[in-house]
């Protein structure tokens, strides 16, 4: 009865379109000596529209992709570059393939956004193919959700062979005797938890964590250089130096927590 189902058997796999060798050599020649503008046609295969907005912000005057001759065109028949966005929903597969076939060879296919690269946040939905490379051969992947205009320009530069890609596949193997350092070994664990919790309660998870880190560095600095200042004087100094009243309040509250802990009061 309850035999585990292999999810792969539930989804039909399509063989992506493949290109002939002749076209591949043509494409290489195109990339090598592209001395003119590159026209881009945008194929929306069911994204959330975030990617489209970023594509349009990269052709605004601020980022101005057109200074490199990158121009968004209205028909795939004019295109050198096809930009596929979205996770490729089932209903968009045929239109996407038609756009692909309509573009003249040699063409460069760019997979745009997390959705285009792998399906992104939608990768395990029942109604998506999960990535451009499931239907057509892809030349360049631009990750991001959505990629910023600068990342878009970098992606185009990689696609046109102007810039080298920066990422490389890497595997780290744990070295013998590798250990992770304990953060703030001089501060008692219970106090550390109380400080982090209070900072995060007041400033949110990420910024709260950062403020707690700063505060604990301050506390440790005090422990290592016990000068003429007392702990509370040090805290008052830190609060006084703080320009942002919200941060000053949080640091003041953290100082209270330390005082409470020193007096042995419960949280």
């Amino acid at each position, binding site marked *: 009865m309850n035999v585990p189902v292999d999810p792969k058997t539930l989804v039909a796999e399509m063989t992506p379109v493949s290109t002939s060798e002749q076209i591949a050599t043509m494409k290489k020649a195109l990339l090598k000596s592209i001395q003119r503008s590159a026209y881009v046609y945008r194929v929306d295969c069911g994204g959330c529209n975030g990617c489209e907005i970023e594509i349009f912000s990269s052709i605004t005057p601020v980022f101005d992709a057109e200074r490199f001759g990158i121009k968004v065109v209205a028909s795939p028949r004019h295109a050198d570059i096809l930009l596929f966005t979205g996770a490729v929903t089932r209903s968009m597969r045929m239109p996407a393939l038609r756009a692909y076939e309509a573009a003249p060879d040699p063409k460069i296919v760019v997979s745009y956004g997390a959705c285009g690269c792998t399906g992104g946040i939608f990768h395990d939905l029942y109604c998506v193919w999960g990535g451009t490379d499931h239907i057509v051969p892809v030349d*360049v992947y631009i990750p991001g959700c959505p990629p910023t205009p600068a990342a878009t320009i970098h992606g185009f530069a990689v696609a046109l062979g102007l810039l080298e890609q920066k*990422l490389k596949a890497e595997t780290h193997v744990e070295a013998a005797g590798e250990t*992770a350092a304990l953060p703030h070994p001089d501060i008692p664990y219970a106090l550390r938890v109380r400080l982090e919790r209070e900072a995060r309660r007041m400033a949110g998870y990420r910024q709260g964590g950062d403020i707690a880190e700063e505060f604990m560095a301050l506390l440790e600095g005090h422990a290592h250089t016990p000068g003429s200042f007392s702990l509370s004087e040090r805290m008052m100094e830190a609060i006084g130096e703080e320009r942002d009243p919200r941060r000053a309040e949080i640091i003041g509250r953290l100082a209270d927590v330390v005082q409470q802990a020193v007096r042995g009061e419960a949280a």
Partner: protein
Amino acid sequence: MLKLLKEIFRTGEATVKYPFAPMPVCKDFRGKPEHKAEDCIACAACTVACPANAIQMETDTAAGTRTWSINYGRCVFCGRCEESCPTGAIRLSDDFELAVGSKADLTRKAVFTLADCACCGKPFAPAKEVDYVARLLSQSARGAEEADRLRLTASTCPACKRAQDVQQIAGMGIARQMEAGLSKAGKPAKELETTP
């Protein structure tokens, strides 16, 4: 005309220099999640938190390894991994230049070894995690003896811990009943049967 030219000069050039000059990003920009494998304890908190399943863990008990991997092509740059990481091993960086020509270059992996249970000897958790937890616990220990005991507890697998707990509780129960039985001298036999 002159007015228009003046306006143009006053406005200056709005276009950024990128890619010919580096692009400044704002504070708290959420770029590529940078993983420092040396600080990672393979605790899988980020794997659970990641909404897009960009971070995944694979445990291979036969080889005694656990492999952490991230797929930058699937990441949605939400920052939940850095929020959940207990050691700060993963942080979102300023790097946004992630475009690649081959999909394989979007993944990064880290292989960690598994520790064997101190009791049954089967692999149960990453060695670095066990070590980290043991050190963290012994920080608040009152003496060397308690620290040793905590380290031993940390290096025992959940199944063995459960079995030991059951044994301990059973032992405690009998001892308590024997005490109770002895104090009410005369009829110990009946009360021995009750569960703790």
